[in-house]
């Protein structure tokens, strides 16, 4: 698989949010725990809608949860 250009700090944010579990976050945004695991590991880039939902859970703007690394394009 090609390396994803989108990285995130969901793991850190979960930890800072009373050590929220992956299952809890998944339930809050409507996806399975496995999908949260895949997003954290960079194995899946979520849709824009899901990305906004995750950012909304942490009460943060999208760019503080996800970041795009254009240098990985080449």
């Amino acid at each position, binding site marked *: 698989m090609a390396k994803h250009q989108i990285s995130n700090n969901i793991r850190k944010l979960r930890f800072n949010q009373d050590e929220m579990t992956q299952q809890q976050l998944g339930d809050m945004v409507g996806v399975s725990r496995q999908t949260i695991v*895949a997003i954290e590991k960079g194995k899946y880039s979520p849709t824009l809608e*899901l990305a906004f939902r995750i950012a909304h859970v942490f009460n943060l703007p999208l760019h503080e949860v996800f970041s795009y690394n254009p240098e990985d394009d080449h």
Partner: protein
Amino acid sequence: MSYQEKRSILNMISTLLISGIYFWYIFRGDPTAGMSSDELLYFWGKSILILIPVTIVAKIIIAIVFAVGNTVATREKIPSTDERDKLIELKSLRNSRYMFGLGFILAMVALSMNMSVNVMFVVIVLAGVVSEIVENASQLYFYRKGI
């Protein structure tokens, strides 16, 4: 190993087993020997039409047993289908369709080379089984390696 990975492996095994057992049952004693082309078409049409409900029923039973067994063993509820599952399903289905398309072309090549109707149907059935394996193997790959 996640629920989805286990399900993909189980689906591969069940596809092989169901098709293998069914066609072994149908072909025991070489029933197509000496059949005319019309009789062969009737035989294959009937065999494939029966295979469809047999496969559906067997897969439903296997899926129920697996879901119950997995819930009892892991005490985890069955994960609901989300956007990642749907994307993986679509990409895997695409790979499966490519495989079946290739098999269909091979079957037509067999016919154009004046081979028997039997060969054409064997190639089509094999393409069906292989395409299903490709679909499940693709799912397993995407779940493990990412998408």
